[in-house]
């Protein structure tokens, strides 16, 4: 650390602090190859103005997503395109899961909701508009909401997520409202591929279909991306991985968006089941397996930073990613709330969260130092039950998802998460559910939990997954690396033999909030 500071003595103290905090979900800066991001290499790291934009944005920073929360307001119901993975009759399969219909809000209701949530959840730092249609197909409602929120809650970052069709038209307005994060869903750059994903678009008062529709959409998406990055607005690109349709093609998409200055690429698995009533669901189009997704993400990782922590959340989600507190903030409840927006209290709280985050990074470095000198080709995955804050703090039976880390002698890398149905329902475990949990983390060597019962423990061992409950409430990366060091020692001594694990399933069903 001393060395690093010495090397970077020409930088300001903020520059050094951002390197210490080691931000991960960070960016690329033109040219080819992945930019380093807050790594110990230090040089070429994020400029201060970009760090300020992402350090507490859970979607743009993997590091931040353990600590900071976001919310979406569903003010934009209209859409200007049709996607084969979306069924508007039952809400969008990817953004608002079927069976859980979002409450539509007016801009006034939305602004009140944002202020109310920000008062109750001080680590809520980001407001996004993501639908349930397309924000830019509802420009009046979308921009009015941003205007009202900027007045009522000036410290909140604004962002929006769009299919990009209307983007070139609205780039200047986006800049004018200080929206400094925009996500564009780009599933293809080849209209022939696009024709298999988009049956039609509505543009310039006309419905276009087939290859022509996909060509117009693709041109607008890429032009919109260029216009945004020219104006210094951070862009994330979302892509839905559809096996046999665009899976191999997404490598080309990755190159195209990287060359146009996209900051982060998020490749998400297709969510597809017949009950969603989508074209893909009904014609039996499958989603990728966990390993297929990871292989593609790893392939693109060499080109730019990949988002691995996306939860494909609802257009009205509230809370940390992976957590949904929207039921606490229905319109009825908000209208009855006595709201006191305390900017100072929010700032103090967020400073405490920042300290916690830095403690987590320091703990990881400490453990990484202990691994120094170890050499091994072994790389494996482990699953972690966590409620957030970067700690192993969830019981196995209460986990609604597991975070997945890849361990090697170069460190612990967050590579994804797996949703599961809670194993423990009302005090007793469900054997059927346990099987689905095991299938979801079947490619892992171990699962770290705060606590676990005797029965599931035995079944996990039988399935070849080691349950680890000795490091409850400790930092994830520190504990995982300590376990990995022991694992390597056991392999070296011949006590155990390292074997590779198989593939795992990505859960497809609707995730009904248990709140």
């Amino acid at each position, binding site marked *: 650390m001393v060395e690093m500071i010495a090397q970077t003595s020409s930088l300001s103290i903020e520059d050094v602090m951002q390197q210490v905090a080691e931000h991960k979900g960070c960016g690329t800066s033109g040219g080819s190859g992945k930019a380093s991001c807050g790594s110990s290499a230090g040089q070429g790291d994020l400029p201060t103005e970009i760090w300020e934009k992402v350090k507490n944005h859970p979607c743009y920073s993997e590091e931040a997503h353990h600590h900071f929360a976001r919310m979406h307001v569903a003010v934009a*119901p*209209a*859409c200007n395109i049709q996607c084969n993975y979306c069924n*508007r*009759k039952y809400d969008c399969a990817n953004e608002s899961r079927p069976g859980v219909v979002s409450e539509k809000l007016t801009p006034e209701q939305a602004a009140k909701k944002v202020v109310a949530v920000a008062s109750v959840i001080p680590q809520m730092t980001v407001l996004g508009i993501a639908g349930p*249609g397309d924000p830019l*197909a*509802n420009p009046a409602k979308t921009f009015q909401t941003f205007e009202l929120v900027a007045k009522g809650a000036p410290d909140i970052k604004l962002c929006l997520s769009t299919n990009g069709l209307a983007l070139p038209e609205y780039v200047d307005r986006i800049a004018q409202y200080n929206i400094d994060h925009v996500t564009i869903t780009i599933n293809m750059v080849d209209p022939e591929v696009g024709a298999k994903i988009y049956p039609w678009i*509505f543009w310039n008062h*006309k419905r276009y279909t087939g290859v022509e529709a996909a060509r117009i959409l693709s041109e607008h998406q890429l032009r919109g991306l260029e216009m945004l990055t020219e104006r210094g607005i951070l862009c994330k690109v979302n892509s839905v991985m559809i096996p046999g349709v665009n899976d191999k093609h997404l490598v080309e998409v990755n190159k195209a968006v990287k060359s146009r200055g996209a900051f982060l690429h998020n490749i998400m698995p297709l969510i597809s089941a017949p009950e969603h009533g989508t074209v893909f669901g009904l014609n039996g189009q499958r989603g990728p397996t966990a390993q297929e997704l990871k292989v593609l993400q790893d392939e693109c990782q060499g080109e730019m930073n990949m988002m691995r922590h996306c939860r494909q959340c609802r257009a009205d989600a509230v809370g940390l990613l992976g957590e949904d507190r929207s039921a606490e903030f229905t319109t009825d409840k908000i209208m009855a709330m006595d709201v006191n927006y305390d900017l100072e209290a929010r700032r103090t709280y967020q400073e405490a969260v920042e300290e916690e985050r830095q403690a987590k990074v320091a703990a990881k470095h400490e453990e990484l130092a202990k691994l120094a000198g170890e050499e091994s080709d072994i790389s494996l995955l482990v699953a972690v039950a966590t409620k957030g804050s970067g700690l192993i703090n969830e019981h196995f039976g209460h986990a609604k998802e597991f975070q997945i880390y890849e361990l090697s002698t170069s460190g612990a890398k967050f590579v994804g998460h797996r949703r599961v149905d809670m194993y423990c329902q009302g005090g007793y475990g469900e054997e059927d559910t346990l099987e689905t949990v095991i299938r979801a983390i079947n490619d892992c060597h171990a699962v770290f939990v705060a606590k676990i019962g005797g029965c599931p423990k035995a079944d996990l061992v039988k399935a070849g997954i080691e349950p680890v409950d000795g490091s409850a409430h400790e930092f994830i990366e520190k504990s995982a690396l300590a376990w990995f060091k022991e694992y390597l020692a056991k392999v070296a001594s011949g006590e155990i033999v390292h074997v590779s694990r198989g593939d795992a399933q990505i859960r497809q069903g609707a995730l009904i909030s248990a709140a």
Partner: protein
Amino acid sequence: MAYKIVSSQCTSCSACEAECPNVAISEKGGTFVIDPKKCTECIGYFETAQCVAVCPVDNTCIIDTAYPRYQAKA
């Protein structure tokens, strides 16, 4: 002389409301309705009916046979 919206099919997404050149569409009881007195089937404005073209659910904006087809004024 007008289109109508099949309310059981309407997702209430509001896309048609903004596209209607006659301001004939409004929300009523949770879904959207077309005022047959104002609807011109987009004749005089666009080649195709805008509500039909933008609606995410097929066969939801349909010709209302209770009215004679709209005739553009000479």
